[in-house]
């Protein structure tokens, strides 16, 4: 069976007044049904652009190269109509901020049934029943009353559940979750992630979970792609990545997560410096200026994506623990 999603050498650049901004530089990723991939990186590393580019939800200033295959079909050259037919029923997306991703003047029920009626051609009554069932599925108490509510009456966690219900309403094969928990309370984050994992298994969906938090992806993904400055710098099965990480960048990311067991008053390690200018093509490893293990070779030559065995890929001349 062909994979649900296969990206080959996908690059995205934006036409800006300062020149071409390269947001994603040649990413290759494969995802099977029911599998989930975590895309991790700091702000500006290209993770959101990658997921939007895969769906084709980019603004007009952007150009995408490379091939995107969905269920074995190359969809890179689909026109607007063909792509739209895939949206919702094939690929769906959950957005970062549930506060802004719902229309403030329409009732939850109307927004939830919209795609059911428009995309699946259900009649109003069937759509309503399905919507109530979906609300129940995402554990909204009293779904009938919820159908009549407006977004401002709900908390962030509730709204994100509604967004999830909308996204899965047309049974997509592929779900993109773009930082689904960033805008939520820590206590609600775990519930929402748990819900996403359950739904993924139930509907056998492939999922891409975009986040900047390694802790979020740890328990909910099968593999992880760490992105830095538009490149995938480490790509490995989740367990493999956490037990045997190769990239200094991944290590630095993990170190900068606050931990309960560290004594009070300890300084939280941060990654010094900032991302390189995305409009310029500088030689060498893009992480060189911030890397604690940097050598002259790192500054001169960009490391290729190296196969470390066990499906573990990394982009480093001097990986942690040797080659």
């Amino acid at each position: 069976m062909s994979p649900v999603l296969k990206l080959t050498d996908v690059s995205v650049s934006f036409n800006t007044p300062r020149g071409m901004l390269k947001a994603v530089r040649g990413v290759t990723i494969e995802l099977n049904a029911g599998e989930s991939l975590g895309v991790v990186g700091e702000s500006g590393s290209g993770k959101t652009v990658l997921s939007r580019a895969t769906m084709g939800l980019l603004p007009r200033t952007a150009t995408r190269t490379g091939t995107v295959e969905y269920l074995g079909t190359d969809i890179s050259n689909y026109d607007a109509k063909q792509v739209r037919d895939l949206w919702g029923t094939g690929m769906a997306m959950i957005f970062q901020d549930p506060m802004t991703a719902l229309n403030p003047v329409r009732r939850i029920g109307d927004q939830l049934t919209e795609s059911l009626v428009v995309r699946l051609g259900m009649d109003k009554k069937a759509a309503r029943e399905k919507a109530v069932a979906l609300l129940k599925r995402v554990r909204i108490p009293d779904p009938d009353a919820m159908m009549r509510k407006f977004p401002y009456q709900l908390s962030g966690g509730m709204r994100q559940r509604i967004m999830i219900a909308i996204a899965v309403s047309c049974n997509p094969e592929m779900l993109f979750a773009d930082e689904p928990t960033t805008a939520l309370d820590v206590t609600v984050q775990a519930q929402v992630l748990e819900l996403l994992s359950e739904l993924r298994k139930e509907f056998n969906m492939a999922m891409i979970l975009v986040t900047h938090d390694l802790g979020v992806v740890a328990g909910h993904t099968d593999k992880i792609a760490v992105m830095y400055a538009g490149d995938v710098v480490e790509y490995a099965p989740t367990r493999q990545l956490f037990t045997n990480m190769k990239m200094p960048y991944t290590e630095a990311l993990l170190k900068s997560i606050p931990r309960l067991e560290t004594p009070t008053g300890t300084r939280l390690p941060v990654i010094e410096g900032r991302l390189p200018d995305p409009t310029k093509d500088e030689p060498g490893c893009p992480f060189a200026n911030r890397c604690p293990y940097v050598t002259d070779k790192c500054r001169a030559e960009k490391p290729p994506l190296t196969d470390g065995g066990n499906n573990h890929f990394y982009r480093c001349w001097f990986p942690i623990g040797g080659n």
Partner: protein
Amino acid sequence: MSNTTEAVEIAPQEKTKKPRPVGFYIAGGWLAVIVFVGLFGRFFPLPQWDEASFDDLGVAPFSPRHLLGTSQDGYDMLSGLINGARLSVFISICSVVMGGGIGSILGITAAYYRGRLDAIVVTMFNIMLSIPNLVLSLALLSVLAYSDANNPASTSRRVGVLILSLTIVLIPILGRISRSSALQWSSREFILASKSMGSSNFTIIRKHIVPNVAPAILAIGFLAIGSIIIVEGSLSILGIGIPGGASWGSMLANGRGNIAFSPHEVYLPALCIAFTVISSNYFGDYVRSRLDKRESKI
């Protein structure tokens, strides 16, 4: 256990309904009276507005047969005002609905699709706005409803052309407001979210943009009704509006020569215009303030 947790509903916010301000009832009441009188005024047992009673020329208000007096030519003021309400309200509502309709269709489409269409629409609006309203109406009226002593244009023709010219004046004004509002809403994430579920552009405009833009257009629409009544009055005073005292502005124009002998002939229609304009402005502001509150809740 996290998989048994249910989403906890936040405490329902008790809506504290503030009593509406007194001005709301006064303005609303006045507008309701005007609309009612405009619709049903012709069934009232009053003298015909266009038939002069030669026994009562320039009678003061509160006289036995004429509640609000008559003009120097013997026309009953009350029935004149009631008839004027009909025309003034009809003209302003028609032109605001048409101008607002066409303007917002153009503005919203331009804002949603951007690109070349947007550039064309904006340029068109700017050109239309660069022509002074009164001059534009004047030109249209004198070309399309030309009238002189030998071949006078009928009142209905004049009303039609007046509505047309006021509509043209309103299209860019209301169009620009709906464009800027739609522009704001188009970049919101819920538009992208609906798009990512495969909704067509038409569905997105109809279900997501129009409901959000509508209150802004409604608020400005009320303000526009007020200014249109004024424009209609100004045109009548210039002598090219509705002739023969059929509208408030026209009554004003007819009566201005008699202000020394029968001042009520000028004051009464002027007061009607003033009250209506103030009321519709107040209403527009009220709608807008409600709109601001709603936005702050999001």
